[in-house]
C-alpha cells in the first residue's frame, strides 16, 4: 500500500522537482551504507583479536606479531575444559544467573501486574524506589553485602549471588513486564471475571500466555545482567561458587603471560550472549530502555 502511495506521489510531482530529490536519495544511500559497516568493523576488531589470540600458542603470542594464527591450536580451549577451576567457574556463573532469573521474574510478575492495573497507596513512590536500586552503584554495596551475607551464613553460595543480583534485576524485570502488561487491554481481565474465572486461574491460564513474549524478554535481561556483573559476584564468593569472571581476573593478576588461555576463556563467555541475542534482537532496545520504547 505504501508503495502505491509513493508511486502516486512521484507521479504527481513535477519532473524537475522529483529528479534531484531522487538522485540525492540515491547518493545518500550509497554513502550511508558505509557508516554501519565501518562501525561494525570497529566493533569486531577487538573480538577478532581475542579469537585470534585464543587459537595461538603461547610461543607464537610472545615470539612474533601475526595478524592471524600461523600455528593454529585448540590447546588453550582444551586447558579450560580440562581444568575444574575453569569449567566450574562457568557452571557457577550459569547456576547463579539462572537462579536469579527465576527468582526475579517470578517475584516481578505479580508486582508488575499490580503496577499496571491498580492504584494503591504509595505506588508511585514505590516504583521510584525500585528504580533507584537499578541505578545504585554496586561499589557502594560491596562491603555491607559481604558482611550481610556472611552474617546470614550464605557467603560463597550460589544463592547469595542470585539474591544479591535481585537488587538491580527485580526493578528491571518489573519495569519491562509492566511495559508489556500495560499493552494488554484491561477488558480482557474484566471479561474473564465475568466468565467466572478466579484470579489465579485467569492469571496463569489467560494472562501469562498473553505476555509470554514480555516474560521471555525480562528473563533474558535478568540472565544477561546477572551474567555480565562481576563486582558483587566476586565479593560474595571465594572458592565454592566462584564465577568465571573472577577466575579470569585471577589469571590476569597471577600469570600475566598466559594470554592465550585468558583469550579463550573470554571468547567462551561471549557465547551465551551471542546465542540468545538472535531471539531478542527486536526487543533489545525495549529491554535496555526499561520497557519504555
Amino acid at each position, binding site marked *: 500500500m505504501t508503495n502505491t502511495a509513493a508511486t502516486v506521489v512521484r507521479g504527481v510531482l513535477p519532473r524537475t522537482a522529483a529528479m534531484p530529490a531522487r538522485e540525492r536519495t540515491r547518493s545518500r544511500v550509497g554513502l550511508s551504507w558505509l557508516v554501519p559497516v565501518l562501525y561494525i568493523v570497529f566493533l569486531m576488531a577487538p573480538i577478532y583479536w581475542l579469537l585470534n589470540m585464543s587459537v595461538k600458542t603461547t610461543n607464537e603470542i610472545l615470539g612474533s606479531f601475526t595478524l592471524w594464527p600461523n600455528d593454529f591450536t585448540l590447546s588453550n580451549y582444551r586447558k579450560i575444559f580440562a581444568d575444574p577451576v575453569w569449567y566450574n567457574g562457568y557452571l557457577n556463573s550459569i547456576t547463579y544467573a539462572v537462579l536469579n532469573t527465576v527468582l526475579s521474574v517470578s517475584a516481578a510478575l505479580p508486582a508488575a501486574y499490580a503496577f499496571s492495573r491498580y492504584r494503591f497507596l504509595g505506588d508511585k513512590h514505590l516504583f521510584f524506589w525500585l528504580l533507584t536500586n537499578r541505578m545504585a552503584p554496586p561499589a557502594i554495596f560491596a562491603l555491607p553485602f559481604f558482611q550481610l551475607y556472611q552474617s546470614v551464613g550464605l557467603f560463597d553460595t550460589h544463592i547469595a549471588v542470585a539474591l544479591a543480583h535481585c537488587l538491580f534485576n527485580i526493578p528491571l524485570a518489573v519495569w519491562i513486564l509492566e511495559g508489556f502488561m*500495560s499493552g494488554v487491554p484491561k477488558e480482557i481481565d474484566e471479561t474473564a471475571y465475568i466468565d467466572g474465572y478466579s484470579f489465579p486461574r485467569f492469571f496463569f491460564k489467560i494472562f501469562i500466555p498473553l505476555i509470554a513474549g514480555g516474560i521471555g524478554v525480562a528473563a533474558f535481561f535478568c540472565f544477561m545482567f546477572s551474567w555480565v556483573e562481576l563486582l558483587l559476584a566476586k565479593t560474595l564468593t571465594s572458592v565454592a561458587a566462584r564465577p568465571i569472571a573472577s577466575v579470569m581476573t585471577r589469571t590476569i593478576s597471577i600469570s600475566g603471560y598466559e594470554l592465550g588461555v585468558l583469550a579463550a576463556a573470554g571468547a567462551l563467555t561471549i557465547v551465551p*550472549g551471542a546465542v540468545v541475542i538472535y531471539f531478542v534482537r527486536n526487543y533489545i532496545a525495549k529491554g535496555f530502555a526499561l520497557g519504555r520504547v
Partner: protein
Amino acid sequence: MDKTENNKAWFMVLPVLLLVAFNAVIPLMTVVNYSVQESFAGNVFFFEGSKWFEQVLHSDRFHASLLRQLAFTLTILAIEIPLGVAIALAMPRRGPWVSVCLVLMALPLLIPWNVVGAIWNIFALPDFGLLGRALNGIGLQYNFTREAGDAWFTMVLMDVWHWTSLVVLLAYAGLMAIPEAYYQAAKIDGASRWAVFRYIQLPKMRRVLTIAVLLRLMDSFMIYTEPFVLTGGGPGNATTLLSIDLVKIALGQFDLGLAAAMSLIYFLIVLAMSWVFYTMMTRGEART
C-alpha cells in the same frame, strides 16, 4: 489506562518489596551506621558525628576522583550520543541486513564487563595488541600502562566500543516508530535531508534519546569493572574513577567510616540523577 483503586495490590508487590529491601535497606543502613562511627579492629565503635563526611568533602582525593568521573562521563556522552544517532540514521530500514546489523551491534552489550576490560587489554597492549602495534607502527609513542593520556584514550575508546550500540538501538527503535507518511509528506514539500532530520526525526526520537542520555549518564557513574580490569585505576591515579576509589578505600584499606561516608555522598549524587531520570520519563509518558 484507568487503574482501579485497590490497596490489596500491596500483597502482590510484597515479594518484590521483601527481596529488594533485604538487599537495599539493610546494607544501606549498615553504611549509614558506619558513616557516623569510628571503628577499632572492626568490632569496637564510637560515635563520631559528621567527622567522616567533613573529611570526604574536604579531601583532595575525593575531589580528584569526582572530577575524573565528571570528565569521563561528559567525554563519553559527547561522543556516544551523536555517533549513535548518526549510525542509527544510516542503518537500513528493512531487508535481511537489519537483523545482521542489530545482532552484530548488540554483541558488545552482552559481554561480561570484566571480559570487556580483558578484550581491550589484549587489544591495546603495546607489544602484543593490534591497536597498540598499529598506533606505534604509525609513529605514535603509545603505551596505555605508562602514559596517563594513552590510558584515558583507551578507556574512552573502550566505553565507546561497549556502549554506543545502546544509543544506536534506542535511536533506531525511535526512528522505526515514525510512520512512512511523514517522510512522504516531507518529500512532497521538497524538504532537505537536514530539515527531515531536524523537524521529523529528531522530535520523534526525543523520548528515546532522553532515555539514552540518562542511562549512559547514570551507568557511566557506576562504571567499575571495565576500567579496573583495563588499567587498575593507573598509571598512578590517572584513571581512578569514583567506584574504583571507593572500593580501594573500603575493601583495600578497610577504612570503614571514610568509605561509608563517601558511599553515601556518591549515592546521593546518583539518587539526584535518578530522580531527574524518573521525572523526565514519567512526564514524557504523561504527554504522549
